[in-house]
């Protein structure tokens, strides 16, 4: 079924915009904004707000209508198929099915100094109303912090006999960040221990297909909650244990 944006009534296709153009505010500024939106293919453009916010910039709020629609069923993504459980269910699941604590080691690797991602997922206080992995009684979580060399992460994972390794990386267009992620995989393969760990990568530009390309078992993007990661880890580690 095709759906359209809902403005005032169903299927009216009305969208609200807010944007800034680098022009000095003048009597014709409103028309500049209007014609810009028309160039994008919108019609019935109404400029609700057009204000100079600086001698050189004009800010707009506008409403406009689109004829475009989309069929949600036609959108094929690369979404991780994981049944998200609640905090207690995850712990019970691990206790029941695994019979021991699930061991997780996580870090932001190599030159990456961003701890926001790994902290949100692992630290006790958690993120967005969800406890971090450290809070789970059935998860033995170690957050090694940032700028951890791949070699150190691997050694720690081996020492703790970890089930899973979480890697957080802010991947920019510079190749270096991607290389750190593939370096860890090459290291695990060279050491012959790739199969021992569930490898998870997370970061603002990570998705599941990209995780596959890098050689990881799962990829989590922005707005991921610790609960999603915990649910995935519990199910995946149990699945693997069952197979062994």
């Amino acid at each position, binding site marked *: 079924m095709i759906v359209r944006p809902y403005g005032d009534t169903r299927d009216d296709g009305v969208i609200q915009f807010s944007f800034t153009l680098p022009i000095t505010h003048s009597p014709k500024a409103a028309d500049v904004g209007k014609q810009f939106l028309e160039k994008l293919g919108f019609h019935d453009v109404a400029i609700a707000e057009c204000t100079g916010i600086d001698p050189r910039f004009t800010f707009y709020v506008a409403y406009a209508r689109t004829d475009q629609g989309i069929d949600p069923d036609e959108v094929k993504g*690369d979404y991780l198929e994981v049944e998200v459980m609640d905090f207690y269910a995850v712990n019970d699941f691990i206790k029941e099915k695994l019979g021991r604590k699930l061991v997780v080691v996580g870090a932001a690797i190599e030159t990456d100094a961003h701890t926001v991602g790994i902290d949100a997922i692992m630290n006790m206080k958690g993120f967005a109303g969800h406890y971090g992995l450290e809070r789970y009684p059935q998860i033995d979580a170690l957050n090694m912090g940032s700028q951890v060399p791949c070699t150190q992460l691997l050694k720690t994972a081996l020492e703790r006999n970890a089930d899973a390794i979480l890697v957080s990386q802010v991947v920019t267009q510079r190749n270096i960040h991607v290389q750190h992620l593939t370096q860890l995989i090459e*290291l695990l393969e060279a050491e012959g221990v790739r199969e021992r760990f569930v490898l998870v990568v997370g970061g603002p530009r990570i998705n599941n*297909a990209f995780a596959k390309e890098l050689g990881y078992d799962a990829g989590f993007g922005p707005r991921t909650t610790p609960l999603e990661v915990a649910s995935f880890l519990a199910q995946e580690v149990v699945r693997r244990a069952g197979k062994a």
Partner: protein
Amino acid sequence: MTCGQGTAFGERTADAPTVASLYRIIADSDVRALAVIGLVKNAGKTTVVNSLMSACARVFGLTSLGLDGERVDHLTGLAKPSVAPPPGTLVATTRGSLERSRYAMEVLEELPFHTPLGNVVIGRAGEDGHVEVSGPTTLAELRVTVQRLQAHGAEQVLVDGAINRLGSASPRVSDGVVVATGGMVGDTLDEVIQTTVATLDLLTLPEVSPATRGLVDDDMLASARAVAVDGCGGPAPLRLDTVIGEGVTVAREVERLDAHTLFIGGALTRDFAEDFTRVLPPRRKLRVVVRDATVLVLPPTTVSLFTRRGIALEVLQPLRVLALTVNPFRVPQPYHPKVFFKALVDAVGSRLPVFDVVNGLASLPESRARATAPIPPDA
């Protein structure tokens, strides 16, 4: 073998005679599982794989360690070449990729390999269409996937690499390698050449002599992470779970035992190379032997740390590097194809064949030793 017209993929067309020339090298080499590895994203791996499949009538098997054939690169936003396997090609990809690319394929077998994009399936390519190719995640799974493709009748398996990973070149997976380099490898042409040459040096590290190989038996090599062989010829396994981060310890042991040969079981990292070569006295006669070139997880230029100190670095299983392909593409502006090609041929042209399949440039070494591996004889 009939190598016909080049075919269109993405916005670029391969030059048919150049592809035929590259294909002949592969066909003559008796390599049955060819890994196409790139030094960087956008090095042209998929373009090479595509051109080989489309221009030559052989039943190919196709899989990828990474992810190929998606319209736009997730990271760089650049258009990627689409993959349109000729009818009859055996393709190993994931359920998720099939769904995403809406590719209809007769599925012959589902392999028990989980990936973030679902299980790996093997199928036979039908009529037209573009498919996203993403094989299994680990090298052990990749090896089985290659075997299954062969079992279903693939005469020549092509393994597209992943980003900059060397893994698929491992003798565990493939028996021949084509290396793809390109303008994105470095910021300057000099940097591109330096990294390319260093990577080729790394990939073509010489095989150990049978005499050296015989110093340690297979069981000990399989179980110990490091084995030092001293002047009296006795092998001494070092008590280590891994040599990672133990460069200093291993160097001291080598010194204490007065060893002339050191076998290393796992990965060789940059930290290890730096510590090891720093602690060892200069001009120490030593041979370091690793499993194969893919266990060297370090910047290729780091290999010179060993060679500069007179330490011979050798492998138990050499790789067969059949050719180098070059791609002048670079952001924001590509190199001039002929200038880029000539610069790389000048640097490596005497060692192995070099091709630019899109711009129709080829250089074959004078020796034309195309059926033999470019492995230097053991000293």
